[in-house]
């Protein structure tokens, strides 16, 4: 539906719904923190951003041009390769997967003994992998400054045309 629809507003709303659904799915997968974030940031913030952008650019998509089969083929190949990759993964939910046997148990015991807060995700996020979080802040900062830098031209348009700064 997202592919077919030409009204971008609906597309954006649908993608918001999709985000929300995925948040729900995260809950069933025990990832409550992620679900919160996805609901707030993915479904909420992103949709607002999209709406803002739509308000500035208009919301109708032109009719799609001549279809070429290439994207479909690429998509199929991608999916096939990924599924081939997935075959080798430990079965879904298996407790013996290497990912659950190594490193992860230390986090759980470590959170109890070293950090002392109940939420393991927060513990890992803030301490063991705190540096990632710092980097994440960096990313937000970059995006913020980037958006300001890109859009301030628009808020205060310059008079001179872009071409004549030669010399």
């Amino acid at each position: 539906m997202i592919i077919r629809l030409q009204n971008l507003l609906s597309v954006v709303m649908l993608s918001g719904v999709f985000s929300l659904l995925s948040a729900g799915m995260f809950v069933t997968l025990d990832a409550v923190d992620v679900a919160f974030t996805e609901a707030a940031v993915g479904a909420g913030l992103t949709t607002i951003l999209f709406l803002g952008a739509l308000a500035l650019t208009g919301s109708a998509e032109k009719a799609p041009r001549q279809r070429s089969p290439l994207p479909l083929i690429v998509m199929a190949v991608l999916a096939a390769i990924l599924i081939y990759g997935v075959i080798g993964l430990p079965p879904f939910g298996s407790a013996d997967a290497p990912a659950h046997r190594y490193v992860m148990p230390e986090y759980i015991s470590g959170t109890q003994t070293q950090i002392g807060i109940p939420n393991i995700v927060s513990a890992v996020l803030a301490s063991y992998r705190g540096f990632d979080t710092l980097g994440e802040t960096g990313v937000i900062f970059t995006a913020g400054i980037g958006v300001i830098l890109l859009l301030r031209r628009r808020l205060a348009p310059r008079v001179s045309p872009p071409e004549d700064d030669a010399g």
Partner: protein
Amino acid sequence: MTGIDFILAHYNYSASIILMALGFYIVISRGNLIKKIVGLNLFQVSVFMLYISMGKVSGGTAPILTGKPELFSNPLPHVLILTAIVVGVATTAIGLALIVRIKDAYGVIEEDEILVMDRAREQLDARSG
């Protein structure tokens, strides 16, 4: 493992992969720039699903300590995806800001129309240069 078992054992992965492929398809097949970004979003969110699925442990609970020994789902993918979600939004924000500027500069946000304008400009350059 029989076929059915196998599919059952991996259904979550497969679902996210199909979504991933759809997202990717939107990015490469659609001409509207906003739709491309939507596709990119879809693509990324399905990657998040893949990660979270990997972290799931059957019978486990959310990784929050309650005092009694329990089976937890793996918290590490959750941590990673929290970061990745933020990165994804940041990318979306920059992408949309770029689209707004493109709209200002070209008046359209359709890839093929922009391409036509750029071609014309290039030919002009080639003639004058």
